[in-house]
């Protein structure tokens, strides 16, 4: 049982993170907390991809010059590349979301979702 848990430990963490982020994104009333949940959600997916890329016995994928590289010696670079893109997307999302929050705060003086909805309905 313990071995079963350990073999995939990285994946358990990512599931836990995804659930935390998802719940925060949906249930929290404060928009800033929603945004934090959104970030956790995105980062959990990054953790998942990075876990795919790992390889037991592999080192970081910088090939030593002067000898033929064997694929088994280096970890898989592709997920890292994909996640660099995903990180950038995460940064960009956060930037735009913060800008929207600034506008909302300027307009309604609060970041609580129910208060904003009440103010909109009036």
């Amino acid at each position, binding site marked *: 049982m313990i071995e079963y848990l350990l073999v995939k430990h990285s994946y358990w963490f990512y599931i836990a993170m995804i659930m935390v982020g*998802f719940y925060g*994104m949906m249930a929290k009333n404060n*928009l800033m907390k*929603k945004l934090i949940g*959104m970030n956790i*959600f*995105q980062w959990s*997916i990054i953790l*998942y*991809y990075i876990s*795919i890329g790992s390889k037991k016995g592999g080192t970081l994928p910088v090939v030593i010059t002067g000898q033929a590289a064997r694929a088994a010696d280096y970890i898989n670079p*592709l*997920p890292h590349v*994909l996640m660099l*893109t*995903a990180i950038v*997307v995460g940064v*960009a*999302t956060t930037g*735009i*979301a913060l*800008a*929207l*929050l600034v*506008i*909302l705060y300027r*307009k309604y003086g609060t970041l609580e979702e129910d208060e*904003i*909805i009440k103010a*909109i309905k009036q």
Partner: protein
Amino acid sequence: MSPEHYPSLIVVTPLMMSFIVFAAGLFNRRICYPLVIATLCACFYFSVTLLARVMQQGSPIHYYLGAWDPPWGIEYVVDHLNGLILVSVALIALLVGIYSRSIAAGEFREEKLPQFYTLFLLQVTGLLGMTITGDAFNLYVLLEIASFSAYAIIGMGEGAAAFAAFRYMIFGTIGACAYLLGVGYLYILTGSLNMADLRDLLPPLYGSRVLMAGFAFLMVGVAIKMGLFPVHPWLPDSYTLAPSSVSALLAPLFTKVGAYVLLRVLFTIFDPTFSVTVIPATAVLGWLGVAGVLFAGVMALAQADLKRMLCYLIVAEMGFIVIGIASANRFGLTGAVLHTVNDMFMMACLFTAVGTINACAGTRNLRDLRGINRRLPVTMGVFVVAALSVIGIPPLCGFFSKWYLVLGAIKAGQWAYVAALLISSLLSAVLFFRVIEQVYFAGHETGDGSKTVIDRIPLSQLAPMVCLALCIMLLGVFSGKLINTVIAFAVPAAL
């Protein structure tokens, strides 16, 4: 440059021009608009050439970016299906681009205009790129470009637009992340990101639990982005409050390109046998479509705001497309593809008309619009043409796609689909005749200038609207030819 590079140029041109427009806007704001129009014209030319070449050679065009072979590098594929979508997207983007000039000038402060046009071009880049790409991860990146520009432009809208944009962003991020997770699940199983390669690698793995979960995530992600029924709540708010200059671009195109991505996932990444029989995905989608069509039809009836009504109509139209896909036979899919194209034009037409009405009358409330036909006869005429097409009056294009959808549903033996399609047509008939009655026949209002009204609208608004209405008629008249020459090859052969 030789035509073999058009697949990359069609995406790279608007991308590079968006930087140039942004830089030029720092020095001279007047130059932005002509640059944008020139770019969109170029895109339209590229797309038409591409479709013509695909039709001529009868097989897909492949383009390897960076000259790396597909599973390792990124590949662009143009076949009959996305060639058709590319032409429609590029044409509507061009017409809406022309249309946006005078509307945007009234909606944004002057110093924002270069930024607006930059985001407009980036939006077009994202949509065209999503359509043309043959790589699952590349699609995610382009989806995000299109989404980001949409969030920003919607956030600039009226009233509570910033809040609507934030909610859209939350939903959109869940959707994009679910899609990314789905791609990750496919990647861990196969080690590939290329759609064609995935299609070859996946069949032995059908039945794997990872694949099921991955498929579910892909479906959820795409459904959110296309505004399918249970996950649509972001759609009415954000598209209603978006600036009129761009809601005509966003509302028809983004959702339809989402529908196209759904088709790609169901029938290109996965084999039809998987989507239809191994997982009854199409059955689930079909019932969601039925529920969506009925729900959105009723909701649309309850709206007093003309634009919000159209937004619910979009949700209903997405239901139509999904019903066509769910029928999973040649008729149904032909109907779905044809309806995707038709609906782009119908919705673009309706949204541009409503944008002009809003700009002229200062309101979109149905009750305040009576007699508007006397001030805006052509705009209302265009509106009526599009409305009749949505209802499904024969010579217009909406009729033919609905005809194929109904045929497909009958052939699939799903009478609930047929009933939903017919009831929805009835609902939209009620909906639009209510509008037409309100505008044309509900009493006389003496045009005493109590409201500030422009009696003549600029040609840059009028011409695109009339073009769109003409497109609706032409698509109707030539729909048989379109089906025989293009869509017949776009439908997966296995069905």
